[in-house]
């Protein structure tokens, strides 16, 4: 995620301030230096970094901490506020008919983003269409078409056309039925005058409600100039950061947001059309400072549960809420977990588990837990339906059979059974909730009900 390292290095530095009631200039200098380093390593523009760190330093030294606040909390507050100030709100995208144009450098991921955004709008109940105007790059038409087929959204393009402006115009006409028009453009460098002329003409033709700049998370200091030039020619209303599933921190996006006086609209986090997230500044900052991101988590949980349920009509997660939690439920929940994405990403969103604690876990902790989950899955595959529904009935002979059948040992099978028992007990505490509202359940968890056993599928990595 963006600026992950800032989170952990900042927490490290701030921990050194713990217990101090007053902090002097030297302490602040150290904190500021850490922030500078992290931001620079995240590709945030050098000038922007200097401004930001100067603000933080000044405020941390001048502002009196409120009564009862430690120096550490005061610094944290200043950093938080300055970061929020910089990042701003998520780009406003009303759920109504509109035209969106995408612009950016070659290879930044515009075509993939167009299909992902279309998918996102379609999930919100709107009818989107993607119009591909890239007549330059070989294969652009085919890529866009295939991506749109995967996203199950309307597509317009002309593989033989050579005039992007004409294609854009025709495209709008041909997809008049759609609510949201997403106009993809050829990748271009913001300093190539003829290409900038071209995108200005496309803009004239489609008169978009908003133009989004698509930026590769790995972009360096060049982000500033690109953002400025694109903003001057077509006006940038928001930024999409792509390829955030790599190790790049996406600091170029902060630069671009600052330069264009806009905000972040979407984050691209993978290769399939579903791998798109709406940018959530609060969640982003909280995650950054190690406070978890509940909203993202509950959205992911809901989506994964719905998908798992769709695959197996007999299974009904609602029954868990009524207090009956079988091994089959656990199996389904583990499937749902897998759909939620890499464990460490999910973990990072859980309050109290993200940030600080994640830093302390050994690097392979997530792999180990994931291995264990995989073993559990294999074991459950070796059980009969009756055993899955009535785990209490499983006796020693059955354990032996299951262990042999799954190629594991009896101890692991017993481990699974006791894990289930623990989760069952924990879940029965939630059974009163009835309506199965995951978000409420999460809140309850946050207040301290959860702990080791935790929410259904999350049990297996509890200890």
């Amino acid at each position, binding site marked *: 995620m963006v600026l992950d390292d800032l989170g952990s290095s900042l927490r490290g530095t701030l921990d050194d301030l713990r217990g101090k009631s007053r902090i002097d200039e030297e302490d602040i200098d150290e904190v500021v230096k850490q922030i500078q*380093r992290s931001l*620079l*390593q*995240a*590709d945030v523009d*050098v000038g922007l970094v200097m401004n930001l760190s100067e603000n933080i330093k000044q405020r941390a030294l001048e502002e009196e901490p409120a009564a009862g606040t430690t120096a550490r909390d005061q610094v944290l507050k200043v950093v938080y506020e300055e970061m929020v100030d910089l990042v701003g709100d998520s780009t406003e995208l009303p759920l109504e008919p509109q035209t969106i144009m995408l612009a950016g*450098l*070659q*290879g*930044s*991921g515009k075509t993939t983003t167009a299909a992902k955004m279309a998918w996102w709008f379609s999930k919100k109940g709107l009818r989107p269409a993607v119009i591909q105007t890239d007549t*330059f*790059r*070989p*294969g*652009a*038409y*085919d*890529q*866009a*078409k*295939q*991506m749109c087929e*995967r996203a199950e959204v309307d597509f317009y393009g002309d593989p033989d056309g050579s005039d992007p402006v004409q294609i854009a115009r025709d495209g709008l006409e041909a997809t008049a039925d759609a609510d949201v028009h997403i106009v993809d453009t050829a990748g271009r*460098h913001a*300093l190539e005058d003829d290409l900038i002329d071209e995108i200005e003409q496309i803009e004239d033709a489609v008169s978009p409600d908003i133009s989004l700049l698509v930026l*590769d*998370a*790995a*972009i*360096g*200091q*060049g*982000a500033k*100039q*690109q953002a400025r030039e694109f903003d001057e020619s077509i006006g940038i209303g928001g930024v999409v950061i792509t*390829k955030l*599933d*790599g*190790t*790049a*921190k996406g*600091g*170029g996006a902060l630069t671009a947001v600052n330069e264009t006086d806009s905000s972040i609209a979407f984050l691209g986090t993978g*290769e399939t059309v579903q791998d798109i997230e709406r940018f959530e500044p609060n969640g982003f900052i909280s995650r950054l400072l190690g406070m978890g991101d509940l909203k993202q988590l509950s959205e992911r949980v809901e989506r994964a549960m719905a998908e798992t349920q769709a695959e197996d009509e007999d299974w009904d997660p609602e029954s868990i809420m009524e207090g009956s939690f079988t091994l089959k439920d656990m199996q389904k929940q583990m499937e749902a977990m897998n759909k939620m994405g890499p464990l460490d990403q999910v973990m990072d969103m859980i309050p109290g588990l993200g940030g600080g604690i994640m830093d302390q876990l050994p690097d392979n902790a997530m792999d180990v837990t994931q291995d264990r989950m995989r073993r559990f899955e294999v074991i459950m595959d070796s059980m009969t339906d009756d055993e899955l529904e009535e785990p209490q009935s499983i006796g020693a002979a059955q354990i032996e059979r299951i262990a042999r059948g799954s190629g594991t040992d009896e101890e692991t099978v017993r481990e699974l059974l006791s894990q289930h028992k623990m989760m069952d007990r924990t879940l029965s505490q939630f059974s009163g909730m009835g309506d199965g509202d995951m978000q409420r359940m999460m809140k309850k968890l946050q207040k301290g009900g959860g702990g080791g056993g935790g929410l259904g599928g999350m049990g297996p990595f509890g200890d």
Partner: protein
Amino acid sequence: MFDGLKDKLSSFRSSVEETADKKAEEAADQENAAAESAQDPARDEPDSAETAVDPSSGAAAATTTEDTDESVAASASAEDTVETDEDDGPSAFKRAAAFATGKIIIEEEDLEDPLWELEMALLESDVEMSVAEEILETIREKMIGETRKQVDTTGELVERALHDALLDVIQVGQFDFDERIAAADKPVTIIFTGVNGVGKTTSIAKLSEYLADRGYSVVLANGDTYRAGANEQIQKHAENLDRKLISHEQGGDPAAVLYDGVKYAESNDIDVVLGDTAGRLHTSDDLMAQLEKIGRVVDPDMTLFVDEAVAGQDAVQRAKKFNEAAEIDGAILTKADADSSGGAAISIAYVTGKPILFLGVGQGYDDLERFDPELLVDRLLGETE
């Protein structure tokens, strides 16, 4: 490429020059002042304040005035604080000797501000942080404690240090690409790797043109069986350039396509096989494992890592990971048009220990340049037009 850095380098040079010149002047002033103050203790105060600011002239003053009057106490105490600040600085004796023979010595604190400026300039040019630090370290080593005759220009000294420091990190394992192709048994198999969207396929098209210009026959093999539109893209290039393309259906085994490419070249007497692979993020374990497999099955003669000149700090991460998964022989830097900052080139070469071989500098098939570190460094340090 590198235009911003070029300006910054020349401003680094002039600010070090300035510091050194000021220091030489101050040293000269100090000599006069110290000589006078020996006669006139009343003038001591302002002078010792100055010596506190400027350590080398302070030291010089201390040695020239000897233990004759009060001014010594002031100068000596000023020197004490300086000495404790930097233990490994030149000794008072060396400084005195340098001073006496009309030379001055460049010290750490003379460089502190210019070096900070330089570090920021390197970062602004997308040089990765650890690599930037390495460059600064080299400059520090080469300059601190260096004496310069007052007749030499400090500019020359700085230029030499910059030249060496930059060349140290850029010029790694350079080899002659053309020669290696000429010497290798045919067919020569070259595999291209890199993350998504950096321009692998376009680079392949360009390199095939480069090789054809030099009289080699080339076949393309599309190992990107994953990305939508990948076959169509490389097919179009192949048609434009009139090259044979080996490809399978989308979703096929990339290693198999590349293997077929090699087989085709063998039976048709083709000189070079250029094998594309799907772009992948270095965090995707499965895809990186696939790359290892391709390396094993195809056993290419050369693996080239492609990255873009606009990449920032992350460039070294991915270069490292790709080098680990399927060891690379060199790199191609794309999108290296005039205005990109180009620090990625420096960083990638340094962390992988593998040379940058080519730059992609435009959208045309001919827009591929050989990368020459010496030339680049000379251009960086040359007169600003």
